[in-house]
């Protein structure tokens, strides 16, 4: 597979009180169009990724809404898979191009989360879980906390190791002008932060964020461009009670295995990854479940500073700051991951640029692991 990423754009992620979803979308798309050198008329379809607009804002039919807003009279689709909506929209767009139906398409991930009370947002996010989980009063921090506890009991993973994930991602975000939290934090600060769902604390959890990200994909080639060379999706049970294991997200393993086969690359060929760190434990699980590190070994290595810009021996993880520090506007995250990897491969990341980035991977998860989407991107050689 070889789908060109023609252009990328993203808004600043954060609490964007004055910015509506339409304004967020216009901002990200304008950047992508300028970056691509395309014109409006070249875009043949629009894929919108979003999770909460219907639940919180009573607005569905986002394909039609944003097509109109962006002045695009084209087929428009909304793709939803909880927090994997962005990755799924990219995947769906890739399929649209591979089918021969479209040459060039626009993928827009957008989410507005700060218009509503935190408890309402927390409940709405549980739309990604099962009814049984909702009736038990579970929250996402709670469900991932259960996975954390199992991981700690099985592998001795420490709270300090979890905190190190947050510290690393905040450091990366401090170098990212689009990130929600452009400030470094310490392990002590994470350990001191209040408990949300034992053992996960406030600073183990990604924030509530507004934001949009957009990419233009095409079958057209460009010389200095970046291509998507693998796009794979896998599913698992909706609720964690029905999982085979509480220490592995098997959907991540399945999606990544298929992606490695499809692309012909393996973990050692990859210099940079954007993984789904909705909670610190999720980054640890991602690296293990996709085979970058053996089960139970991420904890030690992260505590020692591995996977950090400038110190990484194997691969830099979440150069954007990840969900934790760059922010997690749910529907936009999967698209933002493609934006970050593309720009790393194009050498456009300035102070957070990885020196030898040639191949990158994005990992986007829905719910507690019911959906996993993996993309592999490669810098085209002339």
């Amino acid at each position, binding site marked *: 597979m070889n789908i060109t990423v023609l252009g990328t754009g993203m808004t600043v992620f954060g609490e964007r009180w004055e910015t509506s979803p339409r304004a967020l979308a216009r901002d990200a798309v304008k950047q992508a169009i300028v970056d691509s050198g395309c014109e409006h008329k070249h875009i043949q379809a629009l894929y919108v990724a979003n999770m909460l607009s219907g639940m919180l804002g009573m607005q569905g039919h986002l394909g039609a809404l944003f097509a109109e807003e962006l002045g695009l009279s084209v087929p428009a689709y909304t793709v939803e898979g909880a927090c994997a909506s962005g990755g799924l929209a990219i995947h769906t767009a890739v399929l649209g191009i591979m089918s021969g139906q479209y040459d060039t398409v626009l993928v827009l991930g957008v989410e507005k989360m700060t218009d509503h*009370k*935190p*408890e*309402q947002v*927390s*409940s709405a996010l*549980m739309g990604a879980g*099962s*009814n*049984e*989980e*909702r*009736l*038990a*009063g*579970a*929250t996402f*921090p*709670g*469900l991932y*906390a*259960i*996975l*954390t*506890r*199992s991981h700690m*009991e099985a592998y001795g993973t420490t709270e300090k190791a979890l905190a190190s994930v947050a510290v690393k991602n905040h450091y990366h975000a401090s170098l990212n002008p689009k990130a929600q939290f452009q400030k470094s934090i310490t392990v002590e600060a994470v350990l001191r932060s*209040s*408990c*949300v*769902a*034992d*053992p*996960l604390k406030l600073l183990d959890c990604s924030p509530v964020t507004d934001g949009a990200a957009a990419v233009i994909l095409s079958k057209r080639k460009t010389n200095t461009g970046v291509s998507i060379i693998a796009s794979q999706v896998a599913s698992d049970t909706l*609720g*964690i*009670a*029905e999982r085979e294991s*509480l220490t592995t997200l098997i959907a991540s393993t399945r999606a990544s295995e298929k992606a490695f086969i499809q692309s012909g690359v393996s973990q050692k060929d990859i210099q940079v990854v954007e993984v789904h760190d909705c909670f610190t434990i999720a980054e640890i699980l991602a690296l293990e479940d996709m085979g970058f590190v053996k089960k139970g070994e991420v904890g030690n290595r992260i505590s020692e500073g591995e996977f950090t810009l400038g110190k990484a021996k194997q691969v830099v993880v979440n150069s954007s700051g990840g969900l934790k520090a760059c922010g997690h506007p749910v529907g936009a995250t999967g698209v933002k991951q493609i934006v970050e990897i593309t720009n790393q491969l194009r050498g456009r990341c300035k102070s957070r640029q990885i020196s030898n980035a040639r191949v990158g991977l994005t990992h986007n998860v829905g719910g507690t692991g019911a959906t996993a989407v993996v993309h592999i991107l490669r810098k085209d050689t002339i």
Partner: protein
Amino acid sequence: MISPVKIWRNQKHIAKQLGQTGKIISWSLIRVPPEGFSEQAPYPIAVVELTGKAKILAQVVDWKINELHRGQKVKTVVRKTIEATQDGVIPYGIKVKPI
């Protein structure tokens, strides 16, 4: 208001799950509850393996901190789940209690 029809359909499953025992596989303590659970917080939730091997995710009630651990025996009970509005139908559901 929670849909009375959804509550009715959900409650048909309760009879089957009542009167069972099991053990805690893993748990967490929810300190920041979602809407509809503020009166009950903080409360533990747990993945419980029932005798018969089926697993459920349920809230733990009448608990002591030393009862929250892998292997703790529990039984299923009926309790109120989501806090109903003043004029809404009250949803009941399965929770687990340490024994």
